[in-house]
């Protein structure tokens, strides 16, 4: 029974990692990475590593998406300004 939950978490991680790579638009990829962070935290919990799970939750749920989205926004805004000049 303990193995079943580990298998479920492992398969979820494999699937979400594949989806994260296959999503080519950075904004949508940031959404998938946020879900991947939560799934990884669940995997770490079932592997009996709550400290690592806590670390992953703290970083993956808000910090990484915020950094990615801010970088995308900066690049987009720059692109728009240049478009406006033309």
């Amino acid at each position, binding site marked *: 029974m303990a*193995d079943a939950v580990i298998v479920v978490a492992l398969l979820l*991680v494999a699937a979400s990692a594949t989806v*994260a*790579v296959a999503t*080519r638009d*950075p904004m949508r990829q940031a959404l998938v990475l946020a879900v991947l962070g939560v799934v990884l935290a669940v995997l770490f919990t079932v592997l009996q590593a709550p400290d690592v799970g806590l*670390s992953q939750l703290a970083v993956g749920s808000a910090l990484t998406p915020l950094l990615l989205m801010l970088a995308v926004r*900066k*690049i987009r805004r720059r692109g728009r300004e*240049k478009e406006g000049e033309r």
Partner: protein
Amino acid sequence: MSSVMDVLPYLVAAWVFLAGCYGLATSRNLVHAVGCLSVCQAGTYVLLLAVGYRDKATAPVFSDIKPGSRPVVDPVVQALTLTDVVVGATVTALLLALVVQIAKRHGTVDPDELSELRG
């Protein structure tokens, strides 16, 4: 069942790592490439924690159980992973800062266009 379970976590770690590498190499957008790199990192975390796992054991944290009352998993790999999760996030931030700088200097974040610029 049990023979599959013996190696499944390692195979998942390898799959996650290779998927990240594939995305990194075929990416057309540097921000996407940075995201793929963090997927690669996730593969290494899975591998490390899988190596340290022990069947029917619990976390080596004794704030709510008595020491010695239950078997515990390996704390060394957990300590390695835990610091790397946070440090990895700041390294991701450094890479994103580089991408922003590239966008400013060259006006594009497509690696193919960048190599054409260089000639």
